[in-house]
């Protein structure tokens, strides 16, 4: 009887684990299934390169790919130095109370809802950008990248801090024993050892930036043309899904959002595998 109970328990747990992991596959399967008619007609890779002009029968998502790429990479450009500096402060340079307090603050910041970043961005930042550059409407790649960068900074900072924490104590003690100041310890001991972990953090933050919907939807302008400058409005893959979801179910336009979904999904998989590969490489080296 006890044995049966044991087996039952184990089977239940196994079932839950299998169910959860199969959801991952189910999501991909659904998107392929729903997007298939369009992809058969247009060819998946062709769709990635064609412009979006539904009235001329062109359902490509190329402008959205450019939009996502531009906004995400630009946001990384803003977030990386910021996160780096803050992680230095928390990890090594700041005095003890500052380190703890600041880290607590940053952990709290990760809880701020995205929609609030977007909300404040629209009313505070957009007019500033518009007047500062005297060009465009303020609803553009630059503004979206700024807000997005701010949003991913806490996450990236915490990743960096975690990779600092993972350095063997002996390294740090050795540096102290040799009389290194905190800055020197940071620059010559911590950073070189934590490089892989930090790269991880950057990649995961990039994943988060690519996957964000609201900031791009509310701030980036949602134009359908391939943007030509950072002050141009643009549309991301995620915002495209949110905008077109309302259209006719059977139309090719609607099915294009599944193409976007598949691209996003594949990107997520690429990020996951990249991070795992780097992690294994680091493990193997040690």
């Amino acid at each position, binding site marked *: 009887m006890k044995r049966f*109970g*044991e087996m039952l*328990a*184990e089977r239940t*747990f196994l*079932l*839950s*684990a299998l*169910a*959860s*992991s199969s*959801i*991952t596959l*189910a*999501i991909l399967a*659904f*998107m392929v299934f*729903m997007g298939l008619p369009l992809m058969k007609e247009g060819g998946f890779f062709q769709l990635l390169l064609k412009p979006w002009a539904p009235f001329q029968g062109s359902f490509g998502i190329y402008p959205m790919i450019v939009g996502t790429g531009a906004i995400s990479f630009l946001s990384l450009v803003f977030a990386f*130095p*910021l*996160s*780096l*500096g*803050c992680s*230095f*402060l928390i990890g090594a*340079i700041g005095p003890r109370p500052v380190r703890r307090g600041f880290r607590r603050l*940053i952990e*709290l910041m990760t*809880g701020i*809802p*995205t*929609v*609030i*970043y977007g*909300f*404040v961005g629209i*009313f*505070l930042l957009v007019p500033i950008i518009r007047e500062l550059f005297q060009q465009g409407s303020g609803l553009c790649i630059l503004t979206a990248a700024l807000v997005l960068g701010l949003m991913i*900074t806490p996450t990236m900072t915490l990743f960096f801090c975690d990779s600092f924490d993972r350095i063997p104590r002996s390294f740090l003690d050795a540096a102290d024993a040799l009389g290194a100041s905190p*800055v020197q310890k*940071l620059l010559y001991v911590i950073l070189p050892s934590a490089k892989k972990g930090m790269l991880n953090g950057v990649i995961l933050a990039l994943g988060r930036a*690519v*996957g*964000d*919907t*609201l900031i791009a939807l*509310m701030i980036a302008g949602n134009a359908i043309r391939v943007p030509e400058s950072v002050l141009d409005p643009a549309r991301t893959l995620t915002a495209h*899904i*949110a905008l077109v*979801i309302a259209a006719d*179910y059977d139309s090719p336009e609607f099915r294009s959002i*599944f193409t976007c*979904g598949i691209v*996003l*999904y594949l990107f*997520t*998989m690429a*990020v*996951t595998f990249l991070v795992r590969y780097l992690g294994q490489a680091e493990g193997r080296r040690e």
Partner: protein
Amino acid sequence: MKFRTLEGLTVLFSWAAGLLLLSAVSLLLGYLLIKGYQSVNLSLIFGDASPLRAVLLKERVFDGLFPAIAGTLVLVILSIVWAIPVGVAAGIYLAEYAGSRVKKVLDVFFDVLSGIPSIVVGLFGFSFAVFLHKHYSDRIGPCLLISSIALSILVLPYIIRTTQASLEGIPLDLRLTALALGATRFQNIFLVLIPRSLSGIMSGIILAIGRCAEDTAVIMLTGAVASAGLPHSLFSQYEALPFFIYYISSQYANPDELMQGYGASIILLLLCAGLFSLAYGIRKGLNYWAFYRP
């Protein structure tokens, strides 16, 4: 000499970054509070109805946030109800039962699941709803049920990971003690390991609650609408706080509605900050309770 400059610059750079981040966040929160503090009062939430009667469901609230807050509450509770059993069970499996090969494979799946953008999860929920609508019942469409299932999929990785991590963090001698005394594996898990890792699991659950409360992309596609009153059935559409903020920000009809948006943002912020602190407090408190149980 060159080294000294680099070091000096690094210190400068770090402090500058810290100050920049601090001022950006203060600007964000300050702007919100300054613009919105005036509108945070009972009439923001209850409109023209009397608060007591509205909470007792005797009076309908129009023009207030009460339906949206109620919608978010119900949504979060439902999502957690779906996510906790599956998530904790899967986490237990990963930590206690899985062999290393199985673990590696499942790890990949859960990593991918945790990285999937929320809008893609919402898209899945929407297509699932359409699928059900066409093939099963005409009455099912994007609704509270579908939203809660989609949200639970979104937060599943959080719960699985924290459960797994807290279970795996238990030192070896503690794991083996009960087994050495004759307990079965299941008894060990249920009576020793889980209570020991309860604080970790609970904080994971609370973080998942916070994630459900703030998410907009998923509910936007699966049933949140601009105007629906209190959620009255699993198959009905509903209002939610973050969706309200998004909606108001792009289409407020007059300054009053915009003020409502600010007020709603403050309420949502307080909610998420509160949940976050709760998670932290629980982690500390449960540890104390688990160790020093009389």
